[in-house]
């Protein structure tokens, strides 16, 4: 299989869907002539033209709202937020409109919009540009939230998101854009709501998503080599719909759980997971469920400190050992 980057995988997903369905349009700040702030949309303007690839003014509430309105009339907009941190500027449009419209209309109106863009910290851009609001978004019924961790998943999930008739928010990880991975040359989809066991193991389950999947894989290798521990890694891939069944199956196999999330733990995705695991598989647990997340403070700028603030392989390794009681 060809080796491509996460960034290219996302681009290929959009190009294929633009080709497949003439109702798909790409809108966002700098997505056209500038090729995207992170170059995810590079070349799309040249291939599909300015009707399909549209540069918007810097006005998140305006253009996201426009996308919602257009989607109600059958256009399928894929909107890029230059940073997911800017969700707050368009929050009214995202939640009061995109998330609610189907319900408030008694099911008469669908909103097949995709909002995608880079999330998370790790690039030393401080508190305003390092948000990862998957828990905040997933809190709201009516929306779907996707967080791919590999190029293969990024392409397959984004294609499914574009074909989905509900609003789907795809949170990409800035640091993963350059990550290479195998992606089939032929078309494929990764359906939403299916977690993936990225590594099989028998001693401990790490439930995670996004960049910590990659970090957890590195930690698992060390744990195997240095501590003879067999770690299973479950990548949620989508936060809503949530594939709790794959998580529970893993817990029933390993009986110990560490949840790793690249967000602050308070009111986070891991809290929901921990509740559901104890609720549905309490008797399977041989140890308390542990959580590892971003250190609870706004994103720090200082580069070495930010590495310590976020999950990393060493922090994951330590947390895994603690979960094993050692």
């Amino acid at each position, binding site marked *: 299989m060809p080796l491509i980057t996460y960034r290219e995988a996302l681009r290929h997903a959009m190009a294929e869907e633009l080709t497949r369905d003439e109702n798909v*349009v790409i809108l966002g700040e700098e997505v056209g002539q500038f090729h995207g702030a992170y170059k995810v949309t590079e070349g799309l303007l040249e291939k599909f033209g300015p*009707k399909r690839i549209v540069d*918007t*003014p810097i*006005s998140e*509430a*305006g*253009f*996201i*709202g*426009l*996308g*919602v*309105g*257009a*989607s*109600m*009339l*059958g*256009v399928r907009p894929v909107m890029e937020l230059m940073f997911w941190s800017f969700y707050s500027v368009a929050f*009214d*449009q995202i939640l*009061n*409109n995109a998330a609610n*419209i*189907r*319900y*408030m*209309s*008694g*099911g*008469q*109106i*669908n909103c*097949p919009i995709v909002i995608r863009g880079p999330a998370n910290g790790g690039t030393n851009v401080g508190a305003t540009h390092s948000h990862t609001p998957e828990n905040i978004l997933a809190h709201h*019924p*009516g929306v*779907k939230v996707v967080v791919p961790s590999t190029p293969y998943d990024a392409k397959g999930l984004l294609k*499914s998101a574009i*074909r*989905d*008739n*509900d609003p789907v928010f795809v949170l990409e990880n800035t640091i993963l854009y350059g990550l290479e991975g195998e992606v089939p040359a032929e078309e494929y989809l990764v*359906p*939403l*709501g*299916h*977690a993936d066991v990225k590594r099989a193991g028998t001693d401990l389950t790490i439930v995670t998503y996004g960049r910590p999947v990659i970090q957890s894989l590195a930690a698992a290798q060390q744990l195997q080599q240095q501590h003879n521990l067999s770690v299973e890694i479950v990548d949620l891939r*989508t936060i*809503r*719909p*949530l*594939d*709790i069944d794959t998580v529970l199956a893993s817990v029933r196999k390993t009986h110990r759980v560490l949840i790793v999330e690249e967000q602050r733990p308070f009111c986070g995705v891991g809290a*929901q997971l921990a509740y*559901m695991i104890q609720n549905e598989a309490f008797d399977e647990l041989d140890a308390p469920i542990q959580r590892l997340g971003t250190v609870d403070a706004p994103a720090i700028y200082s580069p070495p400190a930010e590495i310590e603030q976020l999950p990393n392989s060493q922090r994951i390794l330590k947390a895994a050992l603690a979960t094993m009681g050692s």
Partner: protein
Amino acid sequence: MSKKSTDKTAAAAKKTTSAAKTGGANAAPAAAPKPAASGPNPSHSSPVNTALSADEKVELYRKLVRIRRFEERSLRAYQAKKIGGFLHLYIGQEAVAVGCCSLMGKDDHVITAYRDHGHAIAVGMDTKALMAELYGKVTGCSKGKGGSMHYFDPARNFWGGHGIVGGQVPLGAGLAYALKYKGLKGAAMAFMGDGAVNQGAVHEAYNLASLWSLPVVFVIENNGYSMGTSQARSSAGELATRAAGYDMKWEIIDGHDLYDVRAKMEPLLRRAREESKPALVEIMTYRYRGHSVADPDKTYRSKTEIEDYQRTKDPINLFRAILQSEGALTDELIEKIDTEARSEADFAADFAEASPFPTPEDIQKDVYWEADNPSQRTSGGRLFFN
């Protein structure tokens, strides 16, 4: 007269002067609205009005009356605690929705804010479904899930009923964007109140519409008050002329006069359809009731002010007088229309009363397309956490 009660008058006087002054710089000189009672109004002889048959005129009048009687009936139901939440009555503003929506073609679309009953009736929605929605019944136009502020009927190109002030305006631009993208010769009308004009999203929508030349007419229904704050205390400068900053055509319309609404909206809608160009109109109107029924309406305007409007500018009385002078309405027909509108409203209330409430199972329907279309389910996982 108290200062509060003169705010509206002062704002209106300022507007007249400014409109006359800046109109020449605008692509479409905006005439200051004349009091409807003072002599012949050129809007009345506009082709869009003279082309109306007598029957069509009567239908327009009937719609005005139906809206008012519907709302009066809904008020009684609200006072009897049959209706929950807020009830934002449109009484006094009827000529705006009826005038604008009477111009709709098959590819024209409407979106509005929370004061949406008038627009819903104006686009032809069934008053039974509207009343049932107020009662929170499954037979409501949004299955009892939306309520007064969230009426929807996409089959009639009516995209709601939106509760956040100004939040619907970018959606209106989006409807226009979709029309243009699909190559349809239609226009979108995005209604908002004068309280919405200071929201950032509204300005972002103006900018996008003008920048991308979208076929949308933004309609400010200026009833003088943002909830309980008069325009003079809430908005700096003019509302319509803000369009000039976006290089967008603008117009000021007398919203008490249905013919004026039609005469001045029609060219803008036609231009939107044919040339894909946006416009902003400010329609001067007035609401007789509070912001919502919960609003005591006594602290920010005088009773005299309301009574003056009702006596001199009531849109139903004014249009009735015009049609009588044109010979389109007889006393007998006036009586008949009123009786029928009252019966219709009563019938709608009876229908709502007799309809069932949503069941607990209904609460989780209509959240996701996917959950409601299991045969086409493409996904796994759990959508709900219950």
